[in-house]
């Protein structure tokens, strides 16, 4: 029998796509967040914003469709949708900081139980790039973090306190890993969904952060 293993990143991207509401303006970061675009509900009207100055990002172009002047914030070529608009960097970030972007989905190196996020610098490495991460996490109405539960070497990423330099304090609204979904409410971390074959005790073993369990705990959908 062939044992098919689903890439955990795809599990996370699919689950994150379910969070996006109809008519939402959404900014997707690099990595798993970019994959979320592949799983968006086709029946929903969703407007993708990219901070380099485009509202209305469409699917990746075919080779013939590539326009070198239409890129996303990851510098990948993209297409535009009907009703798209271009704007300057200052206007793009006014949209972000001004709370006009509904949802930002981004990756993280570490997340704390209070909803702090560290996703731009690792200790001991040179700190030479931040991009728009610090603006996005303070400005969007809702910040959804998508990340694998642990690092590649199995170290925990969901901690009592971030040990890496933080991107912002107390900004995460929701955290989606391949095993669980957490919501943050007023610096409290609440487990809302857990993978079917897992117990809360199993999850605690790989999650140093303190969390409470929602009375309506559901199976991870």
């Amino acid at each position, binding site marked *: 029998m062939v044992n098919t293993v689903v890439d955990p990143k795809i599990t996370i991207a699919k689950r994150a796509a379910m969070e996006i509401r109809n008519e939402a303006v959404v900014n997707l970061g690099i990595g798993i967040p970019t994959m979320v675009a592949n799983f968006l509900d086709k029946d929903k009207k969703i407007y993708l914003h990219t901070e380099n100055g485009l509202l209305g990002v469409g699917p990746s172009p075919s080779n013939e469709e590539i326009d070198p002047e239409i890129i996303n914030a990851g510098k990948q070529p993209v297409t535009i949708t009907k009703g798209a608009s*271009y704007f300057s960097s200052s206007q793009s970030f006014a949209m*972000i900081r001004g709370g006009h972007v509904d949802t930002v989905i981004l990756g993280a190196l570490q997340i704390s139980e209070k909803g702090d996020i560290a996703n731009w610098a690792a200790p001991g490495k040179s700190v030479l790039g931040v991009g728009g991460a610090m603006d996005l996490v303070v400005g969007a109405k809702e910040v959804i973090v998508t990340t694998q539960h642990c690092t590649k070497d199995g170290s925990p990423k969901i901690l009592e306190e971030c040990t890496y330099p933080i*991107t912002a304090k107390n900004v995460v609204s929701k955290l989606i890993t391949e095993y669980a979904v957490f919501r943050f409410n007023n610096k409290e971390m609440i487990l809302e969904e857990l993978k079917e074959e897992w117990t809360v005790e199993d999850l605690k073993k790989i999650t140093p952060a303190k969390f409470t369990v929602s009375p309506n705990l559901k199976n991870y959908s």
Partner: protein
Amino acid sequence: MSNFVSAKEAINLIKSDQTIAVGGFGLVGCPLNLVEELSNHSVQNLTVISNNLGEPGGKGLGKLLLQNKISKAIGSYFTSNGDAVVYALEGKLDIELVPQGTLAERLRAAGAGIGGFYTRTAAGTLLAEGKESKIIDGKEYVLEYPLFAHVALIKAKKADRKGNLMYSKTARNFNPDMVTAASLTIVEVEEVVDELDPEEIVTPHLYVDYIVNVKEEFY
């Protein structure tokens, strides 16, 4: 009213030790012909304000870096050019790392006569160390100052004879902000037309000093 000049004439106006704002997000929207012309000039010790420093292997602003013309870079993301990382680690390049939205707003503030502004971006992080902060409505904001340049190098799609500009797609990015924030502005355009529709003009001509028509000059 703007002057139409050659790239060489325009770039001759740049002097060593000046601060140059250069449009672009990576290479998209970067005035590559002006940057290339600058690489032929002997200026040194430039401070460059740009989101990135070109791409690895000496592309765009990366070329000026490898010529040791740039001593300081102010921008948001330098890790996309490994050469910039190496220069920074070797102490050959000073870096002022600024969150992307703060970078754009500091340029906008410089062009708009705003003496500073408070932003929630970076509050409580390494990038706010040493900066004044203030609690407004229960949230911490960081004081940021305007960012001026001596010269801005800008890429636009079209100019009319007066120097009004329109841009192309995501090549717009920092260009409309930077063109307001410099004492001297040099714009490379792909096309010069008699007239633009006043409704489609993004940058009115009063911001534009010199225009280089790259179609005439380079093709």
